């Protein structure tokens, strides 16, 4: 009988998880982000959203998982890579093969919501990624012709059905914690925050929501290093 070596717990389906590779974070979220899911990484300028996203994709590439990076900033690959290459964890060989880069910036000015969704799905079907990044999603709301909320609902629903875990980054103004029109439709929210304390700006990460996950709550101090990118500081555990 095969049952003997398995207890009742093993009959329950555990969620499949994708490690982010961010030191300290995976321990906070039971090993990684649920697969498939859509997770919002929210923060003001300079909090490390793009660094977070790149680390997530590079960790996937290292594990043999395909990545797809949608940028909405009309930024050519070489400019993105020029800044990203300052991090030791970036392996340029990943880009173009294990991590495919697509600029949606110009397209968003010309097409409506359905056309944008169709173009994104075509790329997803071509690349068959397990890890997707849309950076930043908040730009889409300002440029898209059509109903932004409906677009987000359809997009997030379809991203999960394509069997990928998608990070969407959301740029917020100081004082805001996340873009509400995005947050209602996602499975997880990770906040990256800057706080001025005793004359110094300190960086924090907080897992606000992660469906199906017994996650660590509360703000955790982080550092951004050239070697690892974002690091959740262990002193807080």
């Amino acid at each position, binding site marked *: 009988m095969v049952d003997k070596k398995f207890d009742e717990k093993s*009959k329950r389906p555990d969620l499949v998880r994708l490690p982010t590779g961010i030191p300290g974070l995976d321990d906070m979220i039971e090993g990684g982000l649920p697969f498939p899911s859509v997770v919002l990484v929210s923060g003001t300028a300079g909090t490390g959203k793009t660094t977070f996203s790149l680390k997530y994709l590079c960790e996937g590439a290292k594990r*043999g998982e395909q990545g797809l990076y949608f940028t909405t900033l009309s930024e050519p690959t070489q400019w993105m890579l020029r800044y990203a290459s300052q991090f030791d964890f970036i392996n340029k060989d990943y880009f173009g093969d294990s991590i495919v880069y697509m600029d949606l910036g110009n397209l968003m000015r010309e097409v409506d919501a359905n056309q944008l969704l169709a173009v994104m799905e075509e790329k997803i079907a*071509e690349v068959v990624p397990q890890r997707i990044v849309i950076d930043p999603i908040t730009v889409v709301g300002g440029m898209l012709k059509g109903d932004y909320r409906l677009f987000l609902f359809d997009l997030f629903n379809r991203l999960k059905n394509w069997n990928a875990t998608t990070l969407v980054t959301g740029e917020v103004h100081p004082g805001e914690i996340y873009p509400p029109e995005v947050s209602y439709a996602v499975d997880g929210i990770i906040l990256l925050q800057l706080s001025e304390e005793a004359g110094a700006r300190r960086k924090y990460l907080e897992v606000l929501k992660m469906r199906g996950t017994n996650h660590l709550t509360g703000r955790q101090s982080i550092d951004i290093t050239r070697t690892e990118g974002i690091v959740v500081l262990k002193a807080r555990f």
Partner: protein
Amino acid sequence: MNSILEAFDNAGLKGAILLDVPSTQFVKVNLMLLRGLAMERGMSGMFISVDRPHQYMVHLLTMHQIKAEKLIFIDAISRFSADCKVASANVGFVDGPFHIDRLPEAMGEWGKCNDGNSMTLSDCGFAIIDNLSALLTYNNYNSVETFLKNFVSFLEVADHIRVPLMIDSEKYGLLYETAKTLCKGELRLSTAVPALGSRADSVPKNITNVNYCKG
């Protein structure tokens, strides 16, 4: 040559064949199997969706120029998920993934009723279910085990049908061990297979380290 099919051929495997695949790679391996079985071999077959609406696989096949005319989709999730994605295919629906006990019966029924595109078991070359472990989300373990036994024995009546059963042994160890007792062979696709992480169009020609474990 599709290396998974080559491994099937070399081992003379027909009937239920267990594939140990990381959960994140199910879509790619399904795509490889369909490319090999439906396109390269020109076989008719059934694709049963229990994890996501069938339209996604149809879209994927279209993008990769894999013709789906010889495929019948049985979709056990669309009517449950309220997804409105559109794709054209021969498809029958099961009310939801909670009703898996009805699936073998449904395969018999819908195989015959799609506008002249009938498919009896003798016409059917393969049956793929996407994916078995997703059934554990909607059913208790014992129901899934019973379904699996019925599903395999239903298809084994016709001994030429290939039934690749994809399970992640690391994640779903118990289901994997159960399936192993029902399968004629087992193929392990290592997580370290580089091609599984490369772009889909390069997958079929690059996967070479499929390990044949047992006949």
